Structures are given as C-alpha cells and as structure tokens.
C-alpha cells in the first residue's frame, strides 16, 4: 500500500502533539483532516485554550504562510480581502492583498464580525478566490481557514447563520488538557516564541500530493456510503431536529473519512473512520427545533450514530 507523504504528515502530527500542542492531539488531527480534505475548520471554545497557538503551530510546521484576522464589529470586508491604493509614483492604483491571501488564515472570534464581513470571508472560503474591483485574485493553495468563536459570549456578536456554518467541514472544541499535561504547560509558560522558531517539517507541495492521493486513491465502499446515508437520513427524520445534515455535509463527511483513513494508513474507508469524524463534521450543521435548542448537538448526533448498525459484511 503506497500512501505518499503519509509518514511525513504523521511526523508533523506527532511532533506538534508531543512538543508544541500537548494534550490537543484530537484537535491537531482534525485540523489536519480538514486541511487534507480541503475544507476549513471552526474551533469553538472559550478563550485561552490554545486556539491561536494551534493555528500558529500548524502553519509553522507546514511551512505555510500565515495570516490573522481579529474580528470586530467594525471590521470591513476590505480589511480581509485587501484594497487598492493610489500610488503617486506609478500614477495608478495598486492592489494590496489582505490577510486572506495566506495559506493558513486564522479568523479569531468570527462571530464578532458583522454579517457583511462574514459573508465576504465565507465567500472567499468557498470560491478560493477574491474579486476586488473587477479583478479576480486566486487564493493560494492549500488554503485553510481556522475560524474561532467563543460560545459563551453572546453580547455584541453576530452568530453565524446555519447556511454559513455549513461551509466549515469540521467544528470542534479543544477542551482543557489533561491534568498533568496542563501542570507542565503552566510550569513551562507560553511557547509562542518557540513556535515562531520551530522548524519547517513539510513543504507546500507535500500537502498537494497528499490531497491528490486522498481524492483519487482512497476507496469508499457502497456499504460505507450507505452507512453515512443512514445517519444523514436519521438526522433528517428525527423529531428533535428541524433540519438535518445537508448533501454538502454528506460530501464533507466522506472527504473527512477518507482523510482519516489516509492518516490511519489505509486506502479504503472503514466504519470507524466515519464514526470518528461524524460528530465533528455533522453536529454544527444540525438545526434543532426551537424548544430543543438547549440540547447538545454533539451528544445528539452521537446518540443517533450509536443507533445505526455498523455494516460488517
């Protein structure tokens, strides 16, 4: 079985999780899955758990360019995409690229930006190009947006509408690290400087090759498709849920499962791949009924998943 660049990618995950992002192995893996399947990731957690660190470390290790947007309610779309400035020496407008023209873009507290700015960003995420003043500028490849949002703070925010949540392949939290690891982290202090100086472990092309391999060589069986479909159908038929997982959600789930299979060293998808990505891929796409809004979407989807029989033969 030949899975190109898998060893290198595993090495990156290993290094990140053991040295720089201790206790965040799941988040690192999911981010890598998002990157490999060409999607974007939404980190939803309270501040101070290392969301930014994660984004920085990932970009540093992969040798990719990094841009950061700190969202506020007066952030304008042009603050993201860039804008044209008149240059007197040349007597012409020159386009200055905004922070979105990077391989990895960290959009911090995306729900603080006003809807207009949000939609400009989300459009860029989907189209992978930015049109400013009639000229279309392609975004670099690979392109990964890591957006964060704080679920606790609701005042002065513009929650992302469901349709835009759908654009993120994965939503996950980070969670507190295990006790002993957290103690070490506290003792060691911030590792931002260390991250800034971390060695590049992968070149840009490696990611492109790996992505191609995942797209073309990982086989997804009819049984797995059926399995996923049954989960999706369950979310659509469940009385607690107003609208279930969309077709795009299904495509994303299959992509994520393939990426996971790649990381596990298989060229075919098994039900466990689906199980390990389903909640991260599917939960944020569910729209619950008004009276059930308090329910935890992750737990709900997990319970649905547990009720579906795994195809074994």
């Amino acid at each position, binding site marked *: 079985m030949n899975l190109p660049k898998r060893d290198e990618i595993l090495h990156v995950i290993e290094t990140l999780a053991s040295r720089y992002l201790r206790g965040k192995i799941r988040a690192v893996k999911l981010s890598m899955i998002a990157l490999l399947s060409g999607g974007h990731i939404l980190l939803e957690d309270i501040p101070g758990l290392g969301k930014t660190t994660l984004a920085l470390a990932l970009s540093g290790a992969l040798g990719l360019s990094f841009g950061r947007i700190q969202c506020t309610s007066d952030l304008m779309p042009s603050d993201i995409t860039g804008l044209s400035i008149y240059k007197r020496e040349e007597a012409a407008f020159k386009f200055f690229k905004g922070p979105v023209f990077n391989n990895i873009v960290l959009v911090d507290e995306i729900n603080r930006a006003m809807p207009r700015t949000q939609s400009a960003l989300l459009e860029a995420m989907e189209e992978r190009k930015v049109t400013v003043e009639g000229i279309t500028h392609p975004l670099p490849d690979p392109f990964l947006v890591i957006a964060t949002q704080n679920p606790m703070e609701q005042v002065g925010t513009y929650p992302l509408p469901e349709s835009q949540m759908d654009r993120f392949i994965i939503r996950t939290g980070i969670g507190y690290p295990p006790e002993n690891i957290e103690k070490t982290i506290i003792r060691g202090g911030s590792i931002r400087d260390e991250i800034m100086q971390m060695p590049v472990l992968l070149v840009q092309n490696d990611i492109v090759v790996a992505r191609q391999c995942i797209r073309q060589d990982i*086989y997804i*069986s009819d049984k797995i498709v059926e399995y996923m479909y049954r989960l999706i159908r369950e979310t659509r038929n469940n009385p607690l849920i107003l609208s279930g997982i969309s077709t795009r959600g299904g495509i994303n789930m299959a992509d994520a499962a393939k990426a996971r299979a790649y990381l596990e060293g298989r060229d*075919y998808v*098994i039900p*466990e791949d689906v199980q390990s990505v389903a909640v991260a891929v599917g939960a944020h796409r569910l729209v619950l009924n008004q009276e059930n809004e308090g329910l935890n979407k992750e737990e709900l989807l997990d319970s649905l998943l*547990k*009720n579906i*029989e*795994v195809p074994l033969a």
Partner: protein
Amino acid sequence: MVKIKTILTILIYCICILGVAPVFLYLDVICRLIFVTSLIAGIIFDRKGRHYIHGLALTILSIVFFFYYALRISSDNLVSPAINILVTLLSVRLLTEKTGRNCMQIAVLSLFTLAGSSLVNLGITFLLHLVLFLLCIAVFLVFQTFYATGINTAICVPDLKKIAATALSMPLISLPLMLVFFMIIPRTEYPLWNFLNSSGQKVTGFSEKVQPGSSTGVSESKNVVFRAQSRRLADKDLYWRGIVLDTMEGKTWVRSSVREHENTFVEKGSTVHQTIFPEPNTSPYLPALNLPVNISGVQAGRDPDYTFVRRQSRQKRVKYDSVSVLADFIGIHGRINKEHYLRTPAGTSRRIMSLAQKISLEGTTDEEKVMRLGQDFVTRKLSYTNNDLPRSEDPIDEFLFSNKAGNCEFFATSFAQLLRVMGIPSRLVGGYYGGTYNDMGGYYLVTEDMAHVWLEAYVDGKGWLMIDPSRFATNYAQRENRFGTGLFKDVRLMMDALGYYWNQTVISYDLEKQVQVLKKTNDAVRGLRFSFESRKLIYFVFPPFLCLLFIILRKKFRYTSLEEKILRTFIKKLRQKYPDARYGPDTGLHDMVKSIDDPAARQFVEYYAGVVYRDRKLKRNEYDRLRELADRI
C-alpha cells in the same frame, strides 16, 4: 392509568369462571354453593383488601373437602368426584389473597377443571370456553411477568392495549397448530362421562313398553333424540316409526320375543330419503320416517313389522340413511297369525266389552268397524292432555267413560284394546310424531317430548292399516308447535344447528368425510360461473401467490454469503475468548479488536476489512485464510 393488580385480579376471576362454567351443572349442589359463595367472598375480600380467613384454616378446609370427595371415588364413579375436588380446591384458593403464586394455582386448577369438563360434555360450548380461556390465560401470563417490577405498577391505557394485543396474538398464532392437531389426534365420539357412567344413564326417547296409568304426568323434556336430514314434509306425514308392540301383558303392552312371519309389501308411493343422526343412547331400535323400507349405514336387521333393530348395541354417535315410503298401510300377502294379535288380558271391564259389542254390530266389514270406532271416539269428546292422567285400577275404562282425558298412550291402547275385543287384530307402534324443521341445517329436530304412540289394525284383504287415535281428540290441533315461538324459537333453532354442525364436523370427524366435503366444495366451485374462464383465474391467482411464497422463503432462508459466514464464525470465537471486549451493533470490527491484544484477530480484521470495504467478494482461498486466522484466536 390502570393498576396491573386490578387487571390480574379481573383476569383471574374470568379464568376461574370460564374453567368452572362448563361443569357447573354437573357439580354437586354443595360444591356449586361453595364455588359461588367463595367467588363472591373472594371478590369482596379483594375489594376490601383484607382476607379474613387465614392460610391454615383454608388448608384444613381443602384437606377435608379432598377426603370427602376422594372417599367417593370408585371404579364406576370416577369423574364426578374428581371434578368436585378440583372445584372445591379452586373455591378455597379464591378466598386467599391474589398473590402471584395463588393466581397461578387458580389458573392451573381452572385449566384442569376445564379439561375435566371435556369428560362430561363435548358440545360446542366447550370450544367456546376453551378459546376464551386460552385468550384470557395468554393475557394473564403476560401481565403476570410484571410481578418483577412490582404489582402496584400502573400503566396507561394505550400501553395496556399494546400489551394485550401482543398477548392475544400468541393464541392466534397457535391456531394453525391447533388445526393440525385436530387432524391427527384421535378423539372419542361421545363424552367419556357417558362411557364411564353408562350404567347410571337412562335410555332416552320412547320406552319399550307402554303402560297407561303408571304415572300421572309425562315429562316435557326437550332433550334431542335425533336429527333427520330430509326434505321438508307435510306435518301429517311426520310419524317416526320406532318399535312395534304386539303383546298385552296385563295392562302393559310389550314387544313379544317371537316374530310372526308375515309376507309384507309396501305399495309404491312418495319416497323420502333421510339421514338420521341420533343422539347417543342405548336403545337398539332405529327410528325412521314411517314407513321405513331400508336402513343403511349401521348394521341393522329389519323385522317383518318394519322395526329396525341395531345389531351392535354400542352407545356411540352414529348416523344412518333411511329410505321411507309415505304409505298408510303395510300390505300383506297371504295370512297372518290373527290369534297372536287378538289376545287380550282377562278382566276387561264390562263397559268396554259392551262398547265393543255395540260397534261390532254397527259395521259389517273390518274396515267399516274401524271407522265406526273412530267415529265413536270423536263423539265421546275425548281430550288430549299430558297432566292429570287416569291412575285407577282400570285406567282405560276410566279414560273412556269418566275422565275422558289422556295422552297418546291412552288413546292408542284403548283403541287397540277395543279393536282386539271386536276381533280385529291390532298392535301399537311407538315412535315420535312431529319435528321442528331447521331451515339452516335442512333437518328435522325431534325431541323427547315428541314421543308418540299410535296403532295399526289388520284389515282383511288390505293389510296393516295405520291409525292414530290421538287425532280423534277434541283439542288435537293444540299439540302442534311445541318448540316455542318467534325469536326464541329462531335462536333455539340456530343454536341447535350450530351444535349439529359441531357434532357433524368435529365430534364425529373422520378424514374420509372431510375429503368428501372438500370434494363437494371443489365441485361447487367448479359449478360457479365467472365472467371469464376459471382456468384463467389460475393464471391470475397463482403467480402472485408464488411470488409471495418466494419472498417469504427468501426472507427465511436468505442466501448467506461467504463474508457473513466467516464474520459470524469470527465474532463467535471472539466473544468466547474475550467476553469483555466491546461488541454491539454500533461497534465496527477495528473497534472490537482495538482493546484486544491478539495478533490473529487484528490480522483477521485487517484482511477482512480490506476485502469487504473495497466492495470485493471473498474468494475461496481468502476465505480459507480468514478461517485459519479465526481458528488461531
């Protein structure tokens, strides 16, 4: 919301009533009283929630009853005490608190009682009770399982309905099985009670001797004597000939043991075919419509006086076919032994003698004399009654000259005796007169109260002339229609028809007959006319039927692929070896072996998943390899 305890209590009362009801009439009076009182007391106790009589007292009571009835068991009285014991034990149990154990005991005792009732009576009511009993007991047993969760649990009505429906489906599913057993299990053709207690039972129907004046009344028993399937006949033809009594012994008419040889013939007339289903009885005489010419279906011999005697006198449910001719006399070639039919006992009263003499003088021929005597009966204004019958020393004399009221026995015997005194040979014919026609079943129902006696007088040159002197009674017309009227009659007739079919198809079931019925149905179906040919119907009916069959069979014996087969083996092995690992429908194979340190199992999973999740089919050699890996676990 309904409490489980309430449901169980109601069901247990239903069960015990259903169990005891079929035998209730056969119980001792004491036993009946005990059952009814303890049923009522039990219900009161349950409602109050206190049981005033305690365990020890009840146990002693049960033992007393047990011995009382056990001592009465003998070889010829077996069933009755046994059933009484069962019912008294059941009654005692009813007084106790309805705990799970006691309820089960009540259910079992009721079941035994119901089973015991089949020894007494195998009517269609038994089937009804049995079916209801089974339904109740199925629901009861299902609810009984709630004991584990607490008897005072309350459940809401929809849930209750769901549980009851599930429980009821169980006996329904067993119905096909019941039909199969019905086909193969041997059965008796009459209640065992009759067999076991045969000595104690009376002969039903007419008696074999006629003795007017022996009792003041005649019972109006509605017990069925026989049913005769035949076409509808005029009321005046409904004489069912049973026995001929030709000898007078004192005042009693009996059948002499010597048969006079007579060369008889029957004139051609309207022929009636009947199939007769007598209720089981010990009488050897086979009743059939007057005049029966031939009886087939049972071994029977025909006497010269057209009495048919069964050779094997077994008390068994039989049927026989009879061919009768509607004739009012039996022709005689040659002569008969007139002496035999003219014997009268000594001590015939003076008044009778003079009356006979007077009428003899009025007529010249025998036929005319008979007619004159009939006219005399009419002018005498004799009335027909079943009550206050003459009971003096000479009841005939009293009937003719002072009381002037009597039943058919008095009419027939007095007429016959007068004929004999006048020198005309005569004999009595015993049988039944009448019958209620059941349109539903197409048969005549003849009950015991239709027993009748008429006579035959020998007229020279003609033969034995049939005469029914009861017709000369002033109120003879009122004898008709004794089966009730209106709705009551309809219901009774319907119930009787149901019982008739039950006896026909279930009790005296035999395979040959069923095949015949099937053939008949087949013929009937063939006779039906459809708008298109019935052959075409086959093409419409069979393919869907076959499809359905195919689908059912396919579901049942679905083709198991190699993958399923090896997977089953693997999981079985794994479960045996590592019972604590994660299994379950939501667990994939990799998760199963993740926590297990078994290289063979892991190898198996890798290999197997590589085939199955690539949508490939297992090849034989791959299967063998997987098999080997599975064996190494």
